[in-house]
């Protein structure tokens, strides 16, 4: 068991709490950086997807997990980022500028989508975000002079200061760098007053505002930040699939993005990565399982059944998500043999009216 004896405020503020953490994260960094050399092309491709969705996960986690707002329309920000990148690349804009613009425009759209959040809570906010998603998707489809409508847009490989990122490894490096930067941005926000303001809004809006937290400003900021990160992911996604069209950004996609956060563990940044990994790996497992299906059952529905069942099962049995399960396992080992079964159990609550929150 590890006891951390704190002797300075620095220790609380630092990113890594103790030497063990430094070791493990360094190992992870080493594995990831060297990945292009020892993984197969297929694994590399999946890793790229995981990193891209992890960035979305970070953004969504900040909004849903830490600020307590709901967004079932994040695919809209993904679309804004993707199309901005596509259009700017076609216009010859350098990558660094185009991806910053993806973040910027997505952030602006995020501010607009966040406007209802200032007055709406819970399910009303969810419906508003759904409405935005559908409307933006329709705009992208109809405005075909700009976006190519249903015929979509093609993208070429990233051109970073003249250095064409044609190979898988190079694209992976770009994704990795951006994912790490996104993670750092989130972590930095969380350990500073802004992050605390987010948490305050999540837990009690009224007392947050009495403590001087400007609700409107911080809610808008949360939406904008979340949208900007998703926009960056959208730009990367566009390059990854190299062909984008409106059907890739529907409400169903938004729901999948939210499941990243839920499966990973709401309220933990690690959950974004874990959830993203799970979401990418799951279809592979399902494809394998399809071969074992009894004859007569059409395999095409299996994906939906498994996805839905996993979601339901996680919410019922593991509400803290994958990271929560990891915490329990780790605590079991740390406290061995003193782990008690009820340690992470939430206090039994009775449903009180959400209208009175």
């Amino acid at each position, binding site marked *: 068991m590890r006891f951390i004896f704190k002797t300075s405020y620095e220790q609380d503020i630092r990113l890594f709490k103790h030497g063990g953490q430094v070791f493990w994260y360094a190992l992870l960094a080493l594995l990831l950086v060297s990945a292009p050399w020892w993984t197969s092309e297929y694994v590399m491709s999946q890793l790229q997807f995981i990193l891209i969705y992890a960035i979305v996960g970070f953004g969504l986690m900040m909004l849903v997990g830490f600020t307590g707002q709901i967004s079932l329309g994040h695919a809209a920000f993904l679309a804004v980022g993707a199309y901005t990148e596509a259009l700017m690349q076609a216009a010859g804009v350098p990558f660094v500028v185009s991806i910053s613009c993806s973040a910027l425009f997505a952030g602006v759209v995020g501010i607009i989508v966040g406007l209802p959040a200032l007055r709406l809570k819970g399910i009303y906010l969810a419906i508003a975000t759904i409405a935005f998603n559908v409307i933006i998707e329709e705009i992208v489809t109809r405005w075909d002079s700009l976006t190519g409508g249903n015929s979509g847009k093609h993208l070429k490989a990233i051109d970073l200061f003249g250095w064409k990122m044609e190979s898988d490894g190079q694209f992976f490096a770009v994704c990795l760098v951006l994912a790490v930067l996104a993670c750092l941005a989130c972590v*930095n*926000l969380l350990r*500073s007053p802004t992050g*605390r303001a987010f948490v*305050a809004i999540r837990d009690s809006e*009224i007392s*947050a*505002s*009495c*403590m001087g937290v400007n609700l409107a400003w911080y809610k808008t900021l949360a939406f904008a930040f979340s949208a900007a990160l998703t926009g960056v992911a959208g730009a990367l996604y566009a390059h990854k699939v190299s062909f984008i069209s409106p059907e890739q950004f529907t409400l169903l996609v938004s729901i999948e993005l939210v499941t990243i956060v839920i499966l990973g563990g709401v309220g933990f940044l690690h959950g974004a990565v874990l959830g993203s990994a799970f979401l990418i790996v799951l279809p592979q497992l399902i494809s394998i399982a399809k071969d074992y299906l009894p004859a007569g059952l059409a395999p095409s529905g299996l994906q939906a059944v498994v996805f839905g069942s996993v979601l339901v099962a996680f919410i019922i049995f593991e509400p803290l998500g994958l990271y929560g399960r990891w915490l329990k396992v780790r605590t079991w080992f740390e406290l061995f043999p003193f782990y008690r079964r009820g340690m992470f159990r939430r206090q039994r609550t009775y449903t009180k009216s959400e209208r009175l929150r």
Partner: protein
Amino acid sequence: MSGAFFAVDNIGIRFGGVVAVDGVSFSVDKGECFTIIGPNGAGKTTIFNLIGLIYPATSGTITFEGKVLNGLPPHRVAAQGIARTFQNIELFEHASVLQNLLIGRHRHRRTGLWEELLFLPSVRRAEIEMREAVEEVIEFLDLAKYRDSVVAGLPYGVRKVVELARALATKPKLLLLDEPSSGLNPEETDDMAFWIEDIKKVLGITVLMVEHDMNLVSRVSDRVLALNEGKPIAEGTPAEVQSHPAVVEAYLGGAEQVS
């Protein structure tokens, strides 16, 4: 009422047809402890909500250090130097005690968004300053052993103290306490009384309190205002108000006499 440290002038609010507060005026001098008492439903917490600008008053003005507060958004109230606690404890349940108190320091924050994203040294310094300020409050209220505990698991008495600590962390000039002793046992109420006295004398913070516990009221308050059904019925020292016939009638229905 100008020149008073904090004054409420003819304030009132109606919710539809219900007049919750009707023509209440009082002023609070700097450094004193002013208590509002009254039976349940008299409008005491509503007045706090009016002062905190959570509800907009339908009539009357609220002045603090000469400045009129009406019309400000709620988050600007803290910037003025007014802090409050809540009757039903509105703490940030999923955060630790330390983080709750740090949020209390929010109005003193000096760093902007971009500095925080990059976590520049200026942010680090500001963080350490906030922690030092918050430690003073923790020491003052003996919360050291709960510093890193998540609020959701703490006992009720401790949470009431954390609520007080969070309000103190904002470094207020005026502190609004909404039923600080409700739900506390006699020992905890004793502690609360000592702390309120210390807050007044040592920290020099003016206290405006709503309270039911008459012992606490007599011990700690300089002046008392009694309300009934949204209207003021008596004002004066604790002894004066407690023996005032209108107050007795409001609490006891007028049939008996308090000897």
